[in-house]
């Protein structure tokens, strides 16, 4: 069977399972006795194995199979979770990750058999096997029995119609065998329809399928629960047919029986054997599918809750609970981009309409009402499309606990990562790109920030260092903070280093504030670590962090107190495509300033402008704010006379303020950001352009670059 159409799903699901495994194994390390966690791990490993098998990735299947075996023993209590076992498991996850990457790139898993890992897994197995070898058998036996009994209802409950009865009785009369089969698919099976298809194929080799319940069309559409029944006419023995069907992987059980003539003709209406979904709780998989419909609705919420292992195990496997299939759709991000562009066009058209109606002057009440209506519709449309593109940052930050654990081993320091606000949502493109900068910052905190356990003890701090990753929404921004309780930044040593590296002169160093010196860390080629370590200290980290975040129109700041720790704050805009902006006029040109960066707008008398160090400043509520005359920076002759009042737009970058002097304010407007293209990249103070209602292009001033 051609499985390539499932490749995309396979990769996504594998990622989810791997992530889940990572999280669960981490929590297992903390709490080795937790049965829920062990079960969850077992289930994830099991699903992975099944999926890999379906897709024909044998190496991946073998590895997961052995992992699953280990967990099965752990679950049965024959092996205890030990530290070295966790290490091996993490290595297995890395290996699986590698397979997955290979598959993504070349749709082939590669040739690494990972025999060493498999051997170690087997060693773990044999290490604790002896005493408990009976246990699994004992446990599975009753389970088997329970299922069999419930399954009997399967094929016996099929009602035949006239023609089917004829065919069947004819076959029996001709001496052929008529069997009923009930096939039960494993609960963890992802591609049930594909499984069923394989069973059909296997059965059809020897037999002819007369009836299937549900219909083959429904099975193809995955409109069935965990089991389906078949009535077949065959010349082969029942056992052969059963074996063939069972050979398909991820099939939990196949039961069958011979149908006799009276079963076929007499069994016209077996009164009380309804073919309702079987609410069966298999002993082996305590996932309580009875709760499925409830659990499936908050599928997204369930994913967020997944790391919190103990709660609601039933809700933890989105995708396997059937209703999810109907409720979520995977959409190519490009299609969403197209949609977003179209919405942008619509907003531009709406703006044109507004300005056209204002221009014509004689617009009637009705037109205005309709325009207002259109405005509210486009606004909600924009919001919905934006929401569709929003994903929780969870997918990115989830890999960090594992990373911190590895760092801990590598650096020989004790540390703990505390995360909050993983559910905070950001635009998909931003989430994808925020991972690397965050990783840099965490590594930086772990390597440079936190002290070794001995030093910490000496300073009266808890031996285990803490790193915090907090995310939250703040107005139109999302703030992500990386905080540690380590040593903080040694301003003096930064200054000396900067002088040594020739970034600043000693005189400059004297004049700089602490804050300015700390900001030197973001300079390219700056690293204070005395020894270049494997973890950080190549001196590329922080300037990359800064430029990556700035490319996302965000900003990064650092606050630090020597001896107490540092806080890195990343501030990102919620959306990149459409923003609220203030339109201003300078000379006869129009510019847009993002509303998010504007603090206040002031009307200033020319006499209030003072000179400090030959630079113009104004004083505003005890703050001294430097003035930037935009007409000079943009080389436009101002329309204002020297004696006129100044219109000053006060903008903020981090905690710095500046006053932009403009000629006129036009008003607030929703604008669609368009790139100027790489051809015009020299102009740093312009962050993009937008098309105004009258079709003209206005440039967007980048307040960050101006300050």
């Amino acid at each position, binding site marked *: 069977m051609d499985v390539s159409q499932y490749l995309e799903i396979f990769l996504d699901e594998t990622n989810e399972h791997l992530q889940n495994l990572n999280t669960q194994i981490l929590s297992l390390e903390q709490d080795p006795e937790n049965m829920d966690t062990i079960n969850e791990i077992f289930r994830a490993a099991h699903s992975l194995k099944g999926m890999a098998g379906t897709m024909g990735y044998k190496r991946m299947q073998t590895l997961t199979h052995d992992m699953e075996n280990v967990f099965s023993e752990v679950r049965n209590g024959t092996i205890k979770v030990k530290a070295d076992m966790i290490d091996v498991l993490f290595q297995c996850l890395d290996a699986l990750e590698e397979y997955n990457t290979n598959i993504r790139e070349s749709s082939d898993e590669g040739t690494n058999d990972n025999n060493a890992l498999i051997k170690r897994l087997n060693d773990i197995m044999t290490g604790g096997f002896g005493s408990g070898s009976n246990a699994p058998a004992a446990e599975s036996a009753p389970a088997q029995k329970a299922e069999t009994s419930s399954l009997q209802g399967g094929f016996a409950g099929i009602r035949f119609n006239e023609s089917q009865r004829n065919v069947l009785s004819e076959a029996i009369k001709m001496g052929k065998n008529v069997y009923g089969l009930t096939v039960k698919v494993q609960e963890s099976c992802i591609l049930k329809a594909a499984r069923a298809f394989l069973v059909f194929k296997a059965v059809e080799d020897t037999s002819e399928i007369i009836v299937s319940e549900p219909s083959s069309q429904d099975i193809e559409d995955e409109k069935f629960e965990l089991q389906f029944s078949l009535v077949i006419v065959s010349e082969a023995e029942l056992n052969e047919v059963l074996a063939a069907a069972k050979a398909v992987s991820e099939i939990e059980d196949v039961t069958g029986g011979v149908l006799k003539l009276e079963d076929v003709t007499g069994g016209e209406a077996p009164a009380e054997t309804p073919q309702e979904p079987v609410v069966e709780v298999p002993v082996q998989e305590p996932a309580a599918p009875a709760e499925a419909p409830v659990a499936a609705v908050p599928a997204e919420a369930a994913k967020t809750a997944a790391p919190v292992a103990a709660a609601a195990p039933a809700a933890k496997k989105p995708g396997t609970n059937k209703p999810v299939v109907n409720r979520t759709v995977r959409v190519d991000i490009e299609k969403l981009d197209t949609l977003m562009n179209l919405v*942008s*066009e619509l907003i*531009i058209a709406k703006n044109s309409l507004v300005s056209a109606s204002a221009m014509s002057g004689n617009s009637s009440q009705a037109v205005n009402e309709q325009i207002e209506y259109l405005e509210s519709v486009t606004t909600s449309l924009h919001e919905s499309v934006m929401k569709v593109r929003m994903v929780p940052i969870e997918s990115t930050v989830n890999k960090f606990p594992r990373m911190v654990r590895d760092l801990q081993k590598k650096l020989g320091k004790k540390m703990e990562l505390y995360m909050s606000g993983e559910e905070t949502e950001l635009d998909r493109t931003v989430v994808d790109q925020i991972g690397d900068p965050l990783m840099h910052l965490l590594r930086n905190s772990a390597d440079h920030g936190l002290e070794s356990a001995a030093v910490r003890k000496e300073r009266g701090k808890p031996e285990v260092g803490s790193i915090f990753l907090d995310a939250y929404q703040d107005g139109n921004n999302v703030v992500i903070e990386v905080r540690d309780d380590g040593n903080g930044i040694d301003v003096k040593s930064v200054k000396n280093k900067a002088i040594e590296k020739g970034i600043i002169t000693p005189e400059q160093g004297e004049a700089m504030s602490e804050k300015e010196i700390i900001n030197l860390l973001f300079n390219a080629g700056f690293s204070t670590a005395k020894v270049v370590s494997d973890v950080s200290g190549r001196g590329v980290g922080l300037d990359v962090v800064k430029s990556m975040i700035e490319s996302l129109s965000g900003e990064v700041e650092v606050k630090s107190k020597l001896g107490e720790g540092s806080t890195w704050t990343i501030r990102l805009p919620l959306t990149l495509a459409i923003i609220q902006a203030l339109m201003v006029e300078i000379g006869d*040109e129009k510019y847009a300033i993002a509303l998010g960066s504007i603090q206040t707008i002031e009307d200033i008398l020319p006499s209030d402008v003072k000179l400090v160090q030959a630079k113009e400043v104004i004083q505003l509520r005890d703050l001294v704010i430097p003035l930037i005359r935009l007409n000079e*920076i*943009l*080389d*436009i002759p101002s329309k204002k006379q020297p004696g006129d009042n100044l219109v000053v737009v006060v903008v903020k970058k981090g905690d710095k303020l500046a006053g932009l002097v403009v000629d006129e304010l036009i008003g607030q407007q929703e604008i669609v950001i*368009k*790139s*100027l*293209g*790489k*051809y*015009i990249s*020299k*102009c*740093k*103070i*312009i962050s993009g*352009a*937008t*098309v105004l209602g009258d*079709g*003209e*292009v*206005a*440039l967007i001033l980048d307040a960050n670059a101006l300050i």
Partner: protein
Amino acid sequence: MNEVEELRPVGETTQFIVIKLGEEQYGIDIKYIDNIVRMQHITRVPKVDDYLKGVINLRGEVIPVMSIRIKMGLERDVETKSSRIIILKLEQQGTIGVIVDEVKEVVTLENERIEKVAYDSKDEKANFLSGVGKSDGGLISLLDLNAVVLESV
């Protein structure tokens, strides 16, 4: 064999749009041309090279516009009724508009009738040409668009 004939197989023809800059005729290979639009308001972009005139709105897209005249060291553009912006689609630089004085016609040149220009370091204009075509209307200097559009350092 000269370079142009290597690129353009003998016996085949290439179509050019003939434009005017001042009195001279220039040809632009038609395969790079996306669109020709009338002069419209160009939004100036501050702090960029002189020859970059700014950006225009073309059906919702923001497209940079440059002046070939300034780039080639000719006199500045004078906007007239016949001025046009030719929108080029280039592989490297993407979409970009160039201002021309007039768009005359489309000519089909046999590749045998295109001659390479000798490189002349004194003549700045020659650096922007990929060849000279002979047509009934006289000589047409064929623009080497990559050189024209190339960002000056």
